[in-house]
């Protein structure tokens, strides 16, 4: 049984991405007890899957490392990975959450030596790389994983491969008898920071994501550009592994569309502008980017970033929402549409198409196991009716990293106020 000591002066943070980590750290560094729950095997969330951040184009490793260090140093944060909240009952100052913890099959003895990974033969989809590649069924979720501990994929449990992993481990860390368990956790306030997921690109039928290999999403493009990604940082197109030197970026892929996502996902314009830098970094003057857009929304203070990209001769801007994509006989995607600056009909051939895919909440507010007020897209609204359950980061709004951290800090403050009230009442 997993022992979790929690009282109604504990803050429960659901989601261990950049928002959840921030909320947990801010609360813990103010002296509050925190339980941080993460669905995946490691903290970091979507941020750990980025190659670079805008606007400074530094690597997320840096920001995450600082946060991981803060987490390690703080005794007030208790982290549960592979854990999901299945129910919340109670009222502000007195909640009880049911948390289901899936087995990792690897215990605290793990030193991340990698012997189990070498021993097993089964390969499974590499979720960290958006299934662009495969990993061994005993794996470290990513280079930056925290906790730095292997996971054994449940699909090989009961097979000889699992026994190989156990036999290979010199530290007695592989425990194939681990079972799923459900624990009850007390909390005075809850910060809900379950983040976002990319919209299902298959639903945007005219773009053929399901039919054409060379139509990918922006999150997949991040992995292609990352040296730790499936191609070792080379921008190779999926159909034939050729270098993709002429890339089209389609903005509002799913966003701002009553048929898909009603809202503007805010980050996609900046993400594509950032990704034109990857093209330049990879291919220099040979790397051509074309951005198809309705209008560029370089959120907040990033207009200068946009203007710099606009001045780059290798980046072309076409004001048009692409109507449809077809594939020519060489597997090149051909984009059809009409531009709005002159109403010219075009049929443009590119090596690769990147859909600047929209954001939707990972857990829509309606699926949160508590009464939560949400907007029409399923993001959490700030509302008295939510009691002491506070939305943070992309669970509350489509936000970039910077603003997610601000949102998380704000929700940590709200949670702290509830805990302080409880503490005063209890004297």
């Amino acid at each position, binding site marked *: 049984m997993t022992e979790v000591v929690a009282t109604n002066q504990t803050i429960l943070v659901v989601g261990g991405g950049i928002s959840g980590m921030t909320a947990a750290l801010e609360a813990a560094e103010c002296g509050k007890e925190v339980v941080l729950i993460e669905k995946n095997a490691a903290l970091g969330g979507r941020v750990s899957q980025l190659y670079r951040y805008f606007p400074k184009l530094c690597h997320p490793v840096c920001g995450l490392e600082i946060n991981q260090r803060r987490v390690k140093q703080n005794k007030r944060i208790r982290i549960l990975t592979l854990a999901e909240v299945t129910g919340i009952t109670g009222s502000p100052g007195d909640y009880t959450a049911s948390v289901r913890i899936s087995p990792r099959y690897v215990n605290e003895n793990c030193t991340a030596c990698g012997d189990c990974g070498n021993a097993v033969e089964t390969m499974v989809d590499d979720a960290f790389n958006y299934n662009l590649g495969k990993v061994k069924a005993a794996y470290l979720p990513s280079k930056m994983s925290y906790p730095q501990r292997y996971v054994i994929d449940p699909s090989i449990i009961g097979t000889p491969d699992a026994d190989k992993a156990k036999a290979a481990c010199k530290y007695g860390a592989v425990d194939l008898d681990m079972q799923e368990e459900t624990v009850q956790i007390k909390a005075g306030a809850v910060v809900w920071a379950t983040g976002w997921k990319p919209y299902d690109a298959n639903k945007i039928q005219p773009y053929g994501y399901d039919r054409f290999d060379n139509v990918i999403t922006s999150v997949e493009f991040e992995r292609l550009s990352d040296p730790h990604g499936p191609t070792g940082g080379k921008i190779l197109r999926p159909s034939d592994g050729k270098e993709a030197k002429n890339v089209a970026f389609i903005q509002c892929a799913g966003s*701002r569309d*009553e048929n898909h996502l009603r809202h503007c996902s805010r980050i996609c314009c900046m993400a594509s502008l950032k990704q034109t830098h990857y093209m330049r970094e990879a291919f220099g003057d040979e790397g051509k980017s074309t951005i198809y857009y*309705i209008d560029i929304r370089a959120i907040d203070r990033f207009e200068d970033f946009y203007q710099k990209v606009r001045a780059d001769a290798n980046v072309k801007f076409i004001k048009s*929402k692409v*109507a449809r994509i077809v594939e020519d006989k060489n597997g090149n995607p051909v984009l059809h*549409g*009409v531009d*709005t600056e002159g*109403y010219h*009909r075009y049929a443009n051939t590119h090596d690769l198409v990147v859909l600047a895919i929209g954001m939707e909440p990972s857990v829509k507010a309606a699926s949160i196991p508590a009464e939560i007020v949400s907007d029409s897209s399923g993001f959490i609204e700030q509302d008295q009716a939510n009691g002491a359950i506070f939305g943070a980061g992309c669970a509350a709004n489509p936000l970039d990293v910077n603003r997610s951290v601000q949102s998380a800090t704000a929700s940590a403050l709200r949670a702290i106020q509830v805990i302080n009230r409880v503490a005063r009442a209890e004297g």
Partner: protein
Amino acid sequence: MSIEKYRKNFLKEVEERVEEGQWVKMCMQCGVCAGSCPFGPHWEHTPQKIFMMIRAGKREEVLTSDSMWMCTSCYNCVVRCPRKLPITHIMHGLAYLSKREGLMPKNQPTAQFGQLFWDNLTKNGRVNELKLSLGMYFKDGFSQGIKNAMAMQSVGMGMMKAKRLNPMEILGGHGIKDKSGFSAMLKKAKELEDARRKLA
């Protein structure tokens, strides 16, 4: 240069007088309608261009355009429009306004067919398929009519076999019982429509 150029008079007119015209201001100029239209390359103005022209007050250019007459009501644009504009309906509404204002392009085949169909239908309350097709064939003169009829011969024979085209209809054809009631109804409907759209 007069300030009138910048007023939104024509947009207001469209909002009042065109079916679903109140949607025109919602267009965000993404261009998906134009790119999705199967007739796209054959129009003078794409839907998003028409909407922008309306907002720019280009009354004459819009109402004399042949674009809205080219719409085949396939509804591709309507299902794709990210703002759910009823583009097909707006196009038909604009076509109607242009006809009522007498601005539609001369010899526009769709407009001619529409008129023939209407006259044919309102006469007896039923469509006389035979007279309708003959009327369409012979609209450009006798010899052209014969040519058209010969070219469409197999279709005509097929329709006759399927009992969709009765040669006896040439003698006047079938109709409804209460013709005067029918015309009274149409007259009232037109009155109401004219009053609503300020078309009288």
